[in-house]
C-alpha cells in the first residue's frame, strides 16, 4: 500500500511522530533509513529516541499518560499489561495485506483480546549453530540430528580445544543465552506442546521433560571452551571469537541470527569464515521446529501522522530497507532484499518453519524470565545444584503467574 496523505486526505507536511525504541547505533541508523522515504513522501518528520531503559520509561509513561506516538515494546508479556493504553491497529493497518504477509504465529502474538496492538518490526531466528568452514568441513551435509552432531563432535575432536563455545554474560540480562539453549532443547526433545504449556506456566520446571533439557544443556556446558568460569564471564557477543582463533578454541557456537553483526563475526566473511546450520532434531517427531524472536512495536497516540507511519513500517518496501542494511530479519515474507546468502537462509528458516514457536523466556512474565536468567547463571557455576535451582524456579513460577 502506498503511504502518503492520511486516509482522511489531509496533508501530513510539517507534522511530527515521536518514536521511542531500544535500538541504538547501527540499528538506529537502519530505522532512520527505513522511515526516510516516508518522511520525503509525506513531509512529516520522525523524532526517534533510543533508550536501554525502555521498561522504566514506558512503565512511567503508561502510568502517567505521557507517551510517545509510537514505541518499541519490551516483549509480548509487557505488551499485554499495556494493552489498554495501546491503539487497536485493526483500523490503522491494511490488515488483509498484513496478515497475508506475516506468519500467523506472529500476528497472534500481537493480538490481545482480539485487539491487534503490536506488530513485529523485525525478527531474528534463534538457535542457529555457527561454525567455521575453515576449521570444519561439513561437506554440505550439516548434522541434521542431535546424534549426528555428537558424532561430528567426536570425529572432529582434534580440530579445536573444545566442542562448544558459550558465553552467557550480558550485563543486566546475563543468563539469556543459556535460556535460548534450554528452549531449543525443550522444543526438539519434548515438542511444541510441552514448550507452550511450559512458558504458559502450566508445566513445572521440575517436570522430567524440562529437567532433561537442563541436563542436556549441562553436557554442553561441560564441553565448553574454558569451562564454567569462561562461560559465566564471557560476553555473548564475544563468545564465538575462539571459532576464528588459530588454533580454534571451539567447533560450534549456538546463537541467534543477529550474532553476525557482533564480536569477531563482524569482521569475518559470511560463507567462507563462518556458516551455520539450524538446530538439529532431537526427537524425529518434531522435525522442522524453529524458534524465533522479534521486536514488537505499538502505537500510543492515534494521530494521522502516526497512523500513516505505522501503516508504512510493516509494508514490504519499508521492511526491505532495513533488511538490506543487514543484521535483521523481517516478519514480512515479501521483504526479500537480504544482502547475503547467510541472512537469506536464516530468513527462509523463519518463513518455511513447519513448527514455529516464539522465544519462551520473552513470553513468560518478566519475573519468571528474570528468575530463568538467574537460574542459568547458577547452573553454569554449579551443575550439581540442578534440583534446587528447578525447585526455586517452581516457586518463582507459582508467584509470577498468580499475579
Amino acid at each position, binding site marked *: 500500500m502506498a503511504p502518503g496523505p492520511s486516509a482522511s486526505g489531509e496533508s501530513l507536511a510539517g507534522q511530527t511522530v*515521536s518514536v*521511542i525504541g*531500544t*535500538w*541504538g*547505533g*547501527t*540499528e*538506529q541508523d537502519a530505522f532512520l533509513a527505513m522511515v526516510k522515504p516516508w518522511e520525503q513522501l509525506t513531509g512529516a518528520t520522525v*523524532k*526517534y*529516541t*533510543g*533508550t*536501554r*531503559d525502555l521498561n*522504566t*520509561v514506558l512503565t*512511567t*509513561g503508561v*502510568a*502517567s*499518560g*505521557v*507517551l*510517545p506516538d509510537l514505541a518499541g515494546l519490551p516483549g509480548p508479556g509487557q505488551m499485554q499489561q499495556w494493552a489498554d493504553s495501546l491503539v487497536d491497529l485493526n483500523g490503522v493497518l491494511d490488515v488483509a495485506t498484513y496478515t497475508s504477509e506475516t506468519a500467523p504465529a506472529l500476528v497472534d502474538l500481537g493480538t490481545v483480546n482480539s485487539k491487534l496492538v503490536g506488530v513485529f518490526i523485525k525478527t531474528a531466528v534463534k538457535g542457529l549453530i555457527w561454525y567455521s568452514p575453515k576449521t570444519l568441513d561439513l561437506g554440505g551435509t550439516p548434522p541434521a540430528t542431535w546424534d549426528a552432531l555428537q558424532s561430528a563432535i567426536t570425529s572432529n575432536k582434534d580440530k579445536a580445544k573444545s566442542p562448544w563455545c558459550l558465553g552467557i554474560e*550480558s*550485563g543486566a540480562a546475563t543468563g539469556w543465552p543459556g535460556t535460548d539453549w534450554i528452549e531449543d532443547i525443550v522444543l526438539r526433545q519434548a515438542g511444541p506442546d510441552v514448550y507452550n504449556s511450559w512458558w504458559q506456566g502450566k508445566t513445572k520446571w521440575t517436570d522430567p521433560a524440562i529437567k532433561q533439557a537442563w541436563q542436556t544443556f549441562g553436557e554442553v556446558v561441560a564441553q565448553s571452551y574454558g569451562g564454567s568460569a569462561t562461560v559465566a564471564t564471557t*560476553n*555473548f*557477543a*564475544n563468545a564465538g*571469537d575462539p571459532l576464528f582463533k588459530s588454533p580454534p578454541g571451539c567447533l560450534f557456537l549456538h546463537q541467534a541470527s*543477529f550474532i553476525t*553483526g*557482533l*564480536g*569477531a563475526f*563482524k*569482521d569475518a566473511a559470511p560463507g567462507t569464515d563462518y556458516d551455520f546450520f539450524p538446530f538439529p532434531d532431537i526427537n524425529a517427531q518434531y522435525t522442522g521446529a524453529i524458534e524465533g524472536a522479534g*521486536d514488537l512495536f505499538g502505537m500510543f497516540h492515534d494521530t494521522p501522522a502516526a497512523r500513516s507511519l505505522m501503516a508504512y513500517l510493516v509494508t514490504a518496501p519499508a521492511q526491505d530497507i532495513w533488511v538490506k542494511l543487514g543484521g535483521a530479519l523481517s516478519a514480512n515474507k515479501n521483504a526479500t532484499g537480504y544482502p547475503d546468502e547467510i541472512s537469506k537462509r536464516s530468513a527462509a528458516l523463519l518463513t518455511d518453519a513447519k513448527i514455529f514457536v516464539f522465544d519462551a523466556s520473552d513470553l513468560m512474565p518478566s519475573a519468571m524470565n528474570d528468575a530463568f536468567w538467574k537460574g542459568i547463571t547458577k547452573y553454569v557455576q554449579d551443575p550439581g545444584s540442578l534440583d534446587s535451582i528447578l525447585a526455586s524456579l517452581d516457586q518463582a513460577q507459582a508467584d509470577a503467574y498468580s499475579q
Partner: protein
Amino acid sequence: MTAQAPSVPALGATAAPSARRRPRWVGRLPLHLAIVGLAVLWLVPTIGLLVNSLRPAADIASSGWWTAIFSPAQWTLDNYVAVLNQSDIGPAFVNSIIISVPATIIPVLVASFAAYAFAWMEFPFRNALAVAVVGFLVVPLQVTFIPMLQLLGPKGFGIIGSFLAVWLAHTAYGLPFAVFLLRNYMAELPREVFESAALDGASPVTSFLRLALPMSVPVIAALAIFQFLFVWNDLLVAFVYLGLAAPDNLPLTVVIANLVNSVGGGWELLGPAAFISMALPLVVFFTLQRYFVRGIVGGSVKG
C-alpha cells in the same frame, strides 16, 4: 594557599632531628611517592579505557590494552570520528549545557537560604527538620517519576518536555544534599562574626549576603561542582522529564547511551564518548578549584 607551603615542614620531618641536615625534598619524598602512588592506582582503569578508545574493536577483544601502549602505530582515531559524526551530538551537547547550568545555580542558591536559616535562626524542630531534609536523599528517584509526570504532564501543569520541568526536577533532587552540606558548613562559621554584625545593625539578609555567603565560598564551589556533575551525567531524569515529550531537548548522555545497539554492538564507541563528555565537567572542576583556598573564614574574622 599552597604557596605558603615552603614555611611548613613536611609530614614527619620534624619528628626526626636528622632531617634538618638532609635536603628538604628528601624528607618530602615519601609524601610525593604516596600521592603519585595513589594517583596511579586511580588512573589505571581510566588509562585502560583511553588506550582502548584508540584501538579497533577486534584488537580490544583479543588483547589487553597494555600491549598497545608502546605501539602507537596501531592506534586509530576511528572511534572518535565515529562518535563525532553522530549528527545529533552537537545539539545534544548544547542541550546538556542548557540543562546543567541553571540546574546547578538554582539549587545552590535556594539551598543556601535554607542552610542559613537552619544554621543561624532559632525555631522549633529545626534540627529534626534539617535532618529530615537530608533523609530524602534516600528516596529512590524512580518512585517519584509517576506522580511527578501526572502532576507536570498534559493533565496537570503541562510542562513535561520543557527545560523548565527538568530544571525544577534537578533542583528538587539536588536540594537535600545541598542543604545538608551548606547547613553544616555555615553552622561552623564563628558566632562572633554574626553577633558583631547584628550589633552594628545588620539585618539577617545583610549578614547572609555579606558574611555567610562569602565565607562559604569553598564549600559552595564544591557543591556546585557536584551538582553540575550529577546533572551533566544524569540520563534517567532527563529521559523521563524530557524524552517522552520532547526528544529534541535530550542531553548528551542519552545520545551516548544510544551509540550501543540493543544487543550490545558498538560498545567500543563508549570510550571515546566518555572522554568527550568528560571534558566540560573537568573544566568546571578546574575553574572552581581556584576557590578552594585557605583563609577566607579567618580573614573575615579579622576584618
